[in-house]
């Protein structure tokens, strides 16, 4: 009997804890991607300022309302602009950031090709 109780205890407890953890993971991921606008070089997740704490509560509220991660980013983008996101999308201000690695890869590849492969 004790054994059954023990098993039951775990069966009931496990799904609950994983649901909670999933929510928490999502919230942490989102707040790590949001910039604390009044701090220097800190994400909302890292900061303990009034601004960041309120933002964390609001992220929780939005998650409870059933908003997806992208919807939450979009929501904060309309409130505070692109600057609040740590992961900027491709636009006229960020194209260099996105294209530079590809450009460097192509130029580097061209140099290697010319100098080492063609010479042979």
């Amino acid at each position, binding site marked *: 009997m004790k054994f059954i109780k023990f098993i039951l205890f775990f069966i009931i407890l496990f799904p609950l804890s994983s649901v909670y953890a999933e929510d928490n993971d999502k919230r942490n991921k989102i707040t790590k991607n949001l910039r604390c*606008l*009044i701090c220097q070089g800190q994400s909302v997740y890292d900061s303990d300022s*009034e*601004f960041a*704490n*309120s*933002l964390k*509560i*609001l992220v929780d*509220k939005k998650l409870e309302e059933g908003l997806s991660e992208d919807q939450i980013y979009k929501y904060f983008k*309309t*409130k*505070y*602009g692109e*600057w609040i996101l740590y992961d900027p999308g491709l636009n006229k201000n960020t194209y*260099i950031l996105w294209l*530079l690695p590809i*450009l460097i890869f192509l*130029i580097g590849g*061209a*140099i290697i090709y*010319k*100098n080492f492969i063609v010479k042979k």
Partner: protein
Amino acid sequence: MLPFSVFIIFVIIFFIFYKALEDSKLYTPDVNIKKEMPVFNTKEFFSGENVKSSNIFKLDKIYLLNIWSSWCVPCRQEHPFLMNLNLDNKVNIIGLNYKDNFKNAKNFLKELGNPYKEIFIDLDGTIAIEWGAYGVPESFLVYNNEIIKKYIGPLNQELVDEIKLLIK
């Protein structure tokens, strides 16, 4: 052939650094962009009754939403200017009491006067975030459910004059 590719790389790097230096690295929030006012539920400051934002902000009237707190020192400096602005009776000043203690907030108003037509409570600071605020004090000029202008930091005589000019 190598010098030419090196030259190209230098040109590209120069271009990147030049562009990076040209842009301002200081974050300056947009204050002039017209945005729709957020919809929120809150509590009235004195009575503690639940209120909806749609019942506070009516169409065809000019409102100044002021986020304040008794623990905020710049709010103390700003307060006489709000009192002054209230004398004209042309703009309805709405207070949003930010993360404050009721007793302290009440004493603050007793000491410095109450320029607010209505005051609402934002205990956890989420309503301020919904307005797109950074901290206290901050003021929003609202007309027809649209934020016309945002004032970050304490108001001063210059800004009060500007508001008076805007609402004419």
